[in-house]
């Protein structure tokens, strides 16, 4: 009952009716595929598409959450919620914070994870240990990691004890100039293991002969890294950049936990944290919905720009 897939295209080319009647098994493949993807399609529709459409609807209405059975008007307000979002100085600060975050986090993530992946791809002693060590923060709960960073970078923390009188004042996590960079570095460290893994997978596709050929041409380790490794893993770099942008723009746990809810004085507030504060704490889901839509648009624009940049030579 095996199907000769090699011969199927010829049959299809030779006879139009055969294309309609077709080898049923071959035409059945998409149906099997549909079955396999259906759980994820369901997931996407229920937890992504429906809420997204509802969010867009809320963003154009005066809306608040009510108890069941409550008959309240949700009048159309046009762009009023968006006007509130764009004129709120805290929103502007939150997006500026995200830009600061991305400017630090994305290049740092790409650079450090690629260097580490290259090192861990080589035959070094304790390779398995190092791979696990770098991956550990990624699978550890943020709450636990935040406690470690507070121990390190708190005003009475280990780092300030080392620095003595050179410690920043106010300290790292309550310093309006340092809070966001600290979060960017924290997230880079936390997610490094995941991105190292992506690069390690990608490095397996870079042919050894390229390294041998470049070595014969006199390229050293550094030249090989920039001329063979970096171009060789470019598709992975695109993925890493876009993924880092998306996760970075959706920052919540770190400013919520590490800097006490976006402090000091909103210096580390993120748009998602603000959505939580406005939508859940303060009862303005319409404002939060409009902010969410703006954030989605922001992420799409930045991601597309990053994709253009990283894929330009592909």
């Amino acid at each position: 009952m095996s199907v000769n897939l090699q011969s199927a295209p010829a049959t299809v080319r030779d006879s139009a009716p055969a294309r309609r009647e077709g080898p049923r098994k071959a035409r059945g493949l998409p149906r099997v595929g549909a079955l396999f993807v259906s759980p994820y399609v369901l997931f996407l529709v229920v937890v992504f598409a429906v809420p997204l459409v509802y969010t867009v609807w809320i963003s154009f209405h005066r809306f608040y959450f009510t108890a069941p059975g409550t008959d309240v008007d949700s009048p159309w307000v046009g762009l009023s919620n968006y006007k509130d979002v764009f004129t709120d100085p805290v929103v502007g600060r939150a997006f500026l914070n995200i830009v600061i975050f991305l400017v630090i986090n994305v290049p740092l993530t790409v650079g450090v994870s690629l260097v580490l992946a290259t090192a861990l791809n080589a035959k070094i002693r304790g390779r398995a240990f190092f791979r696990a060590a770098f991956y550990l923060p990624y699978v550890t709960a943020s709450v636990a990691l935040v406690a470690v960073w507070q121990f390190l970078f708190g005003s009475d923390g280990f780092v300030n004890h080392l620095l003595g009188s050179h410690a920043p004042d106010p300290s790292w996590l309550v310093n309006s100039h340092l809070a966001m960079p600290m979060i960017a570095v924290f997230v880079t460290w936390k997610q490094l293991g995941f991105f190292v893994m992506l690069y390690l997978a990608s490095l397996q596709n870079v042919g050894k002969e390229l390294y041998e050929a470049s070595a014969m041409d006199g390229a050293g380790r550094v030249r090989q890294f920039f001329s063979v490794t970096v171009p060789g893993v470019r598709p992975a770099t695109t993925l890493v950049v876009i993924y880092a942008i998306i996760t970075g723009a959706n920052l919540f746990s770190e400013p919520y936990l590490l800097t006490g809810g976006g402090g000091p004085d909103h210096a580390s507030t993120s748009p998602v944290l603000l959505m939580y504060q406005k939508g859940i704490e303060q009862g303005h889901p319409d404002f939060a919905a409009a902010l969410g839509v703006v954030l989605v648009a922001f992420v799409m624009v930045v991601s597309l720009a990053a994709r253009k940049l990283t894929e330009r030579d592909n």
Partner: protein
Amino acid sequence: MLRRTAYALLVLALAGTATACGRSAPDPAAAADARGPITVWLSNNAQEVQWGKAMVASWNERHPDQHVTAQQIPAGKTSEEAISASIIAGTTACLAFNTSPAAVPTFQKQNGLVSLSDFPDGEKYITERGGALTDQYRSTDGKFYQLPWKSNPVMILYNKKLFERAGLDPEHPKLATYKEFLDTSRKLVHSGAAKAAIWPSPSSDFFQPWYDFYPAFAAQSGGKQLIEDGKPQFDSSAGRQVAAFWRKLYAEKLAPQEAYPGDSLNDGKAAMATVGPWALAAYKNSVDIGVAPVPTADGGSDKHSFSDEKSAAMFSSCKNRATAWDVLKFASSAGQDGKFLETTGQMPMREHLTEKYAAYFQAHPTYRAFADQAERVVEVPNVPGSIDIWQTFRDEWTKSVVFGRESTPTGLRNASSEITDLLNEYGDPS
């Protein structure tokens, strides 16, 4: 076929979503007279849970046909968030014995609360139980949507051992005026006895002013609320004195700008804290605690403070409201209030506590100061947009007082102006 499968999946997903989001509410008219089993929520404070379980057991023994189940409020960052989410989902318990008055306007707007004034004896019961203390808890429509249940009047708790270590008299601490408080704080920190004189959370959570600014403002202003007659009251001489006092504490590093990851008083990192009597039980095995009134510029006696009151409220998802109302009256009866005081050390919202429960205060003299203070408490204003208003105030407070990025008078002026706009907006939601 593939298209049909896709459509079927889509319909299934949408139907599932609609079912999950489908919500229904009990008929208010039928529920008002209905009796039967109900659930009540308690805070997660160990002593309150102990009292709540005993209270419920006592009720169930007398009313086997109207069984009450006690549970702790579902976990969340705050009880208010958990209750708000439950209101929206229609899954609240009938009663919650830990409702913040600041959240009541929001719950009311969500149509999540039952007006207790609408019970035939509702108005009479609430006002007779709480006396003059109840007036601050009426909503803007004149009705009670909460029963003012218990207060935790905020006072200064201090660690006697740390005071002694700093060379201060732990039995007669000099904390009455701002000058005395600052001098005492300097001695505590500069002597190395404590890392911080006092360590309230400097974070920007909307409720944090209740533990730094508001008790001090209540004391300094002679009992003013944040908002009275629809106008902010804090951009005043009293407000400016309070802000300047706290700014000094932060500027001189007597109060840290970074949140402490734990309980700074319990851990011996701070020598003082602004807390209510609930904390005495928590500290009894770890810290030798003394109690003092909140300071004012000139000292004096009979000062006001923030109540840190929690109310009991009935929720619109309750199907057996007649039973719920009876349980509420039973739980807040004089007898149960006495047991609550005995178990938790928190103050029932009744007048003249030291006379009503004289034996208790004779046996527990530390709590007497809180009972006296409970006669002079100020509540958060019961106005629409309450949480927005507190958040706005907090943002300006952290900017000016905690981090000194603008002057304290400017911070108060900005907050007053922004809150006036919010009050106008909420007064005219169109």
